[in-house]
């Protein structure tokens, strides 16, 4: 089993609903976020292009954050999802420094937090992650890459895609449809 997510940059409008839904679902304190929106613009008026991406932890297959964690709080869970166990985290911040995607933040309660793909609270109950299920443009696809019929497998077969900073060698599992 290999959980992954794809975000369609052709449909995402950058509304940030995915951000609020994550905050309310996962009780992320106001002022922090586990996912965020990036808008990249190119060109000069009137020859312009924008790419909009909803970003989060890439649940890398080769995660520097897991490797560098001194306590083992950062670990791989079911389906390759990278999680932090708050009780084991000493808040040293090594993982924050090691992540090329800036996906982690120090939670005010003293541990490091980030996207969990809503693994325990939703995915294991058969629900999509909160961001995927709220998105008004339905531009996000989630599922098991080992299952050819999962929404994410199907859309990656059909569409062109890219990952972020592939040269970092982290093998990210967050795909952007282009």
């Amino acid at each position, binding site marked *: 089993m290999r959980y992954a997510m794809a975000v369609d940059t*052709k449909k995402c409008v950058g509304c940030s609903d995915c951000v609020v839904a994550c905050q309310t679902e996962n009780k992320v304190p106001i002022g922090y976020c586990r996912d965020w929106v990036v808008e990249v613009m190119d060109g000069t008026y*009137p020859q*312009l*292009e924008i790419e909009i991406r909803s970003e989060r932890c890439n649940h890398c297959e080769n995660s520097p954050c897991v490797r560098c964690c001194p306590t083992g709080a950062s670990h791989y869970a079911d389906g390759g999802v990278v999680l932090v166990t708050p009780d084991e985290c000493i808040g040293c911040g090594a993982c924050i420094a090691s992540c090329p995607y800036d996906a982690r933040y120090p939670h005010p309660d003293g541990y490091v937090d980030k996207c969990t793909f809503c693994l325990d609270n939703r995915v294991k109950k058969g629900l999509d992650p909160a961001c995927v299920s*709220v998105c*008004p443009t339905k531009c996000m696809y989630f599922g098991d890459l080992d299952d050819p019929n999962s929404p994410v497998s199907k859309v990656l077969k059909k569409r062109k895609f890219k990952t972020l900073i592939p040269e970092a060698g982290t093998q990210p599992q967050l795909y952007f449809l282009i």
Partner: protein
Amino acid sequence: MKTNRRQFIKIGALGTGGIALAATTHNWSFAADLVKKYVAGDTAGQRTATYCEVCFWQCAGWVYKDEDGEIQKIIGNEDDPHCNGRFCPRGTGGIGQYHDEDRLKTPLLRTKENGKDVFKAVDWDEALDFIAAKMKGIAEKHGPECIALFTHGSGGAHFGHLLKAFGSQSITAPSFAQCRGPREVGFLTTFGDIIYSPERTDIRDSKCLVLIGSHIGENMHNGQIQEMSDAIDKGATIITVDPRFSTAASKSKFWLPIKPSTDMALLLAWMNVLIENGWYDKDYVERYTYGFEELKAHVQPFTPEWAYGITTIDPNVIRKTAKEMFDASPAVIIHPGRHVTWYGDDTQRLRAVAILNALLGSWGRRGGFYNPEKANVPDFPVPEFPTPKRTPTEAYEGKYNLANEVVSNGICDATIPTPDKNCSFKMWMVNGTNLMAALPNQKQTIDAINALELLVVVDTMPVEITGYADVVLPECTYLERYDMLRKSPHREPNIAVRVPAAQPKYNSKPADWIAKKLAEKLGLDAFFPWKDMEELLDWQLKEIGSSLDEMKRIGVKKFPRTYDDLYFAPGEDVSFNTTTGKIELYSTDMEAEGFDPLPVYTPHEEPAEGFYRLIYGRAPMHTFSRTANNPNLTDLMDENTLWVNPKVAKLWGLEAGQEVKLKNQDGIISTFAIKVRITERIRWDSVYMVHGFGHNNKKLSRAHGRGINDTELITNVKVDPVMGGTGMRSNFVTFITDIYSTENEKKS
């Protein structure tokens, strides 16, 4: 000089007498019990049906609580055609309205202390007794029709009912004359029917969607953005006309970066191309329309080359886009937009939009405009309302005869007595709309308020209009109350219910309770014969084969269509609700009222040197004043920025993030400064900002002083003679880079 009777009071300026009272919440057993009954036993995991109040789209959803019984999240109702299980960011962040600690907490009464106006915290009885006594006095002296209600949102039903029972029909919403009015009138005079809300646009099946200044994706009108995304998936062509590279423009096959204020020329050129090339639905036009020959002759001179000189849009692009529309027809939508009060000839521009749709045969066709239907829910029986001596339209007699709703600025203007007209509006009740940001020309609004004997503001937040009130009534948020059933027209008739998920916080009350209580004090009990909202809703629901219990379980219920099909059948005989019974390309209504029966292009004011056209719009995470202080949503965006083209920035030496103030053509200077965002996404002759920021009430702790309120710079208002709409896009601003110079302090 006239002295202001009414000093603006910041809600914080409580008189000393009030402070003690403010701390004790006066509990009304009536409402509290009513809510408790339902909320009791509501534990984590259970959900409460509601519909969203963060914007007019009214998406139905479920409120969930956490283990501590605190409201945690709101999720869309899967069965709801307005949202299909997905809320927009504002709706998802709607819990912030409930949690906001800056909410209005207790009724406030204007009083004098040491010669200064202050608010005194009072209990509900005192506040409502005061209002009732004033209302009776005004009715006796001037007549009950001298009381007007300005409203936006669900409270309007309750307070509107109260006003009608009292004898006034002067009920108005800025959503007409400050927003979508021109499109309703433009379509009404053409097709004999309006667009409605949610819009009847069949975007999900459209093959070509044309957006004219409409920024779907930044306006998160939920069903539209969802369907636009579906249409993108199915390969639909999107054509966006906008001087700004909007999000929608970035998703479009064609972006037409039009020179602002020249849209009419483009629309006429498109008609010219369609007709000259025979690219229109001949059978449809022949069968259903009136005045084609006149239209044909009328648009003959308006070639793409003619339009080029005006719009700066390449003639080939005009032809190509016209062909795209024709190829997709009838599954094509020239979108009527929503906020369309721009230049004062807006009804005519929307007529042009309507005519294009008629030529392409999209009205009543799949992928064009469908025929919506509304669930038929009977009203709870009440005695007949008294007939007012004066209808609201007498306030602007002889004007705006084609307006199909009450014109808010017409009421506002008529409140100021003139020698030849004294409509003597003596009291306004304002509910759910911050008139200081909604109505342009703030000075006029303040003058009108100063002519009143009583201003009552009912709101959840201390927005600016509360500072001008004599009485402020804190209503609770939508998450803490029942409201009337939602029954907006849609593809399938449907209803949605709103049930309180929590008890009203502080000393706030539901709008229905406030209206009923006030009615009792006015001796109007007979018009409010229900015990409470549960009884009212249950009665209505049982009449249509449901019940409150069922609706609490399902939230949304759909009904079969009864009177018409979603689309016209091929060759169907259709009669339209116009004078000729046809789709009027040539408008007999317009002609009868002395307006151009066919739309014409009128050049509009242009910026003087060193000035830029002020364009404003929406951000996906906000609904104007309503969300400006919402903790969840300000977390995403807590100020607006000024979009400036790099060329302009260079000319002025502006740097990204630099703060500037703005001065408009009338010398009005913004109260606050705004950060510059240098971006290629805006034309060099315009600047852009998101509306709804720059609040000057300190009690809005997250919104105060963040960005600029565009409304204060909108003083050049172009009133649409057809329906009274207030055109707001003929305002021009220049930069003040030395923001601390005293010379530039706002003159008040």
